[in-house]
């Protein structure tokens, strides 16, 4: 079988259409460049009634929303989850990693929680702060102008609180707290834990004439059909096309490798068309990888040539290293004060939380470094599969019998509806060289491309952080007059610390730095080893923060795009 080569030469080939790829597409197409976007999944538009899950009722499906086909429930708008058909990955025995992939235009931005936090000044300087990990080659001041621009372009609600490490921005006004969130605010106050309005990228107010305003269905994980939440397709790629940009979309196209010439510069990419299962080549002056931290590392490691025998960009041997995800642990409580609720009103609100707690601790007095934020959930949500299970288990808190049948079950359902509050802690793990992904030469995906093998272990530092989360959650539940549900996880289960990858904030596999020996990209996301290759997903992150990574991906992708535009104009690359 011959590799089919297209004659067209693109100015820029962008691999991946999530947050990083979408932003690069928007900036580079708006600047007049001819752009090819290569996406491994199908075309997807949140407004298409055929694929839409927003506003569906559970009874429209025979499984009533159960998560059999989609890990986060059948309404979740991600094609692909921890498993993708035909695209395996492996894990080194004794270690663990869970890898979420969304194969579709817009990638994971179609279903994410839209929690849109800026990194603060301290987050870019971890080593200076506590001697662990490394500092970024850039600081908050380098990124701030781009965070500001992202806020205004995409829209994020929140409030300016003047907190040093949770910087102010250009916020849309937040929605009012729900009932359970008022209980949370009061409970947190008793422990001196701060609570502020959440910062999420849904439009509580109009931002331009192309996007709708939030109508409070609480279903952002289903991707908004009126574009009132941020998804890369609806907010970046479609607008780039609409404003006359030269954007060619290659969907169902799985990139195998970056091709290079005798000078070691990139000449384009080769990809497998999933429909005809043939290999194709695209030519471009610049290649921008935005396939996600691990997928981009995989492409680089699979791009071996005479000039780059260890894989493209891998002269440092660091591609795939320093892989790290946010820490995560959770708990839930039954709150008697939230029983017997009136269902007289619609409290769906925005998808997810209206309030949250940014990190408040003083690490000098704690046995772990870095922090975590607390996400809170609860309320009278849409009943779906699982609703009404163990209807009256909470009877045990009142010395009543559990089980039975008959009319009383109806009363039990209503009595307890909306009375559970849950917490998620999302914290910063330390980036370590010995947590990594690499090519597993024994395994190919169904497109013939060698797959990734993961090798990841938490250290005691992350476990101690999870312990602190559990103690905090327990205290909060008691403060709210509630009963914790389930056993409190102890040392034997790492205090409920979720497996690496499960928070879906994996970063660090192509980290940036000034020294080509200790980093893969420079401070403009440009490979040290090939100056016309850029990485604009979370791979270049030197460290995570106790923040979600999307807003920083967007800001850095915009910053890198500005640099690419300048370099192309000056004919430097």
């Amino acid at each position: 079988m011959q590799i089919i080569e297209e004659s067209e030469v693109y100015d820029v080939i962008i691999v991946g259409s999530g947050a990083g790829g979408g932003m690069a597409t928007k900036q580079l197409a708006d600047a007049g460049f001819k752009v090819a976007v290569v996406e491994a999944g199908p075309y997807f538009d949140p407004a298409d009634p055929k694929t839409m899950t927003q506003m569906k009722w559970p009874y429209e499906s025979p499984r009533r929303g159960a998560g059999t086909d989609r890990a986060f429930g059948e309404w979740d708008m991600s094609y692909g989850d921890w498993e993708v058909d035909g695209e395996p990955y492996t894990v080194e025995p004794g270690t663990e990693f869970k890898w979420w992939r969304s194969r579709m235009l817009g990638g994971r931005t179609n279903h994410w929680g839209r929690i849109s936090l800026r990194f603060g000044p301290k987050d870019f300087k971890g080593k200076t702060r506590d001697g662990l990990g490394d500092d970024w080659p850039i600081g908050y001041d380098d990124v701030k102008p781009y965070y500001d621009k992202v806020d205004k372009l995409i829209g994020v609600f929140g409030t300016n609180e003047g907190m040093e490490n949770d910087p102010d921005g250009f916020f849309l006004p937040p929605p009012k707290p729900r009932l359970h969130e008022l209980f949370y605010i009061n409970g947190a106050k008793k422990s001196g834990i701060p609570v502020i309005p959440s910062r999420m990228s849904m439009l509580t107010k109009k931002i331009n004439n192309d996007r709708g305003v939030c109508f409070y269905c609480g279903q952002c994980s289903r991707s908004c059909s009126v574009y009132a939440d941020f998804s890369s397709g609806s907010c970046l790629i479609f607008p780039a096309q609409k404003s006359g940009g030269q954007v060619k979309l290659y969907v169902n196209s799985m990139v195998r490798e970056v091709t290079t010439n005798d000078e070691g510069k990139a000449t384009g990419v080769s990809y497998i068309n999933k429909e005809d299962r043939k290999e194709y080549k695209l030519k471009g002056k610049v290649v921008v990888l935005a396939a996600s931290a691990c997928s981009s590392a995989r492409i680089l490691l699979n791009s071996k040539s005479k000039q780059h025998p260890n894989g493209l960009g891998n002269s440092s041997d660091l591609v795939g290293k320093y892989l790290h995800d946010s820490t995560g642990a959770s708990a839930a409580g039954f709150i008697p004060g939230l029983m017997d609720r009136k269902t007289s009103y619609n409290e769906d609100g925005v998808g997810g939380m209206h309030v949250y707690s940014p990190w408040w601790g003083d690490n000098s007095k704690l046995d772990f470094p870095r922090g975590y934020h607390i996400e809170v959930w609860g309320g009278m949500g849409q009943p779906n599969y699982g609703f009404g299970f163990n209807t009256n288990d909470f009877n045990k808190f009142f010395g009543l019998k559990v089980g039975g049948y008959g009319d009383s079950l109806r009363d039990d359902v209503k009595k307890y509806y909306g009375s559970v509050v849950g917490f998620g802690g999302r914290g910063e793990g330390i980036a370590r060289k010995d947590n990594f992904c690499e090519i597993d030469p024994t395994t190919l995906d169904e497109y013939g491309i060698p797959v990734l093998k993961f090798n990841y272990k938490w250290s005691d530092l992350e476990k101690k952080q999870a312990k602190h989360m559990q103690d905090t959650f327990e205290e909060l539940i008691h403060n709210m007059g509630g009963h914790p549900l389930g056993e409190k996880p102890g040392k034997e289960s790492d205090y409920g610390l979720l497996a690496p990858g499960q928070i879906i904030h994996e970063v660090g596999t192509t980290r940036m730095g000034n020294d080509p020996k200790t980093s893969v990209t420079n401070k403009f996301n440009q490979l040290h080893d090939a100056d016309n290759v850029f990485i604009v997903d979370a791979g270049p992150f030197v460290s995570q923060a106790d923040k979600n990574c999307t807003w920083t991906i967007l800001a850095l992708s915009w910053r890198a795009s500005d640099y690419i535009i300048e370099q192309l104009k000056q004919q430097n690359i």
Partner: protein
Amino acid sequence: MDRRKSIQTIILGAGASALAFHGCKADGATSGETLVNVDEKYFGRTPAELERLEKLNAEELFNAREMETIGVLSTVILPPKEPHGGPLEANVPEFIEFMGKDIPELKPTLLGGLMWLDHKSNTEFGVEFKSATLEQQKQICDEICWHDPEVSLDEQPLEIQFFALMRNLTVCGYYTSKVGIADLGYKGNMPNVWDGVPQDVLDQHGVAYDPDWIAKCVDQSKRGVIAEWDEQGNLLT
């Protein structure tokens, strides 16, 4: 009124005259709304997911007697109540059969439990469960409907596991149906404008909004006005 119309009506509201389907410009200065375009023919499945659904639908897990038994048992568990009906109006038997196929781990408990039920009923009363009197059916259920919540269900006898599963699926199937959602009173999954918890609800639960907090929140009368900020990030509009 069909649901699509009702969604249009709700989101359009009074005075918002320039709403449009996606792709057309809305009248930004006044409404800020875009129409939600729901098509009830679809529920968002991919071709591969649809194929799997068709395969499952073509399979038969329960025979006619078992389906009837499930109908009878689910009705004992959650008797119908006016005006929102019961498990049969909620298609609970069909839902339970589908789940038994969709999640094959449920299958042995469901099939085995149904056999146990008939065996028990035949032994005690000389009739299969579905033909027993309501009193007899209740007598059987009374023996298996309670369990110690401190002991994991997996460690309890099969018939207790079976009843707990049937109760879960019955209650879930009912409350995820159209009639069950009406019975529950859930008001969501409808376009609306969230403007906080009603005062009577705040009073009932003994909480109040902090005026300083509320002052920062969205003024819904201006949600259709395009956001503008000063250089410090203060919202001007």
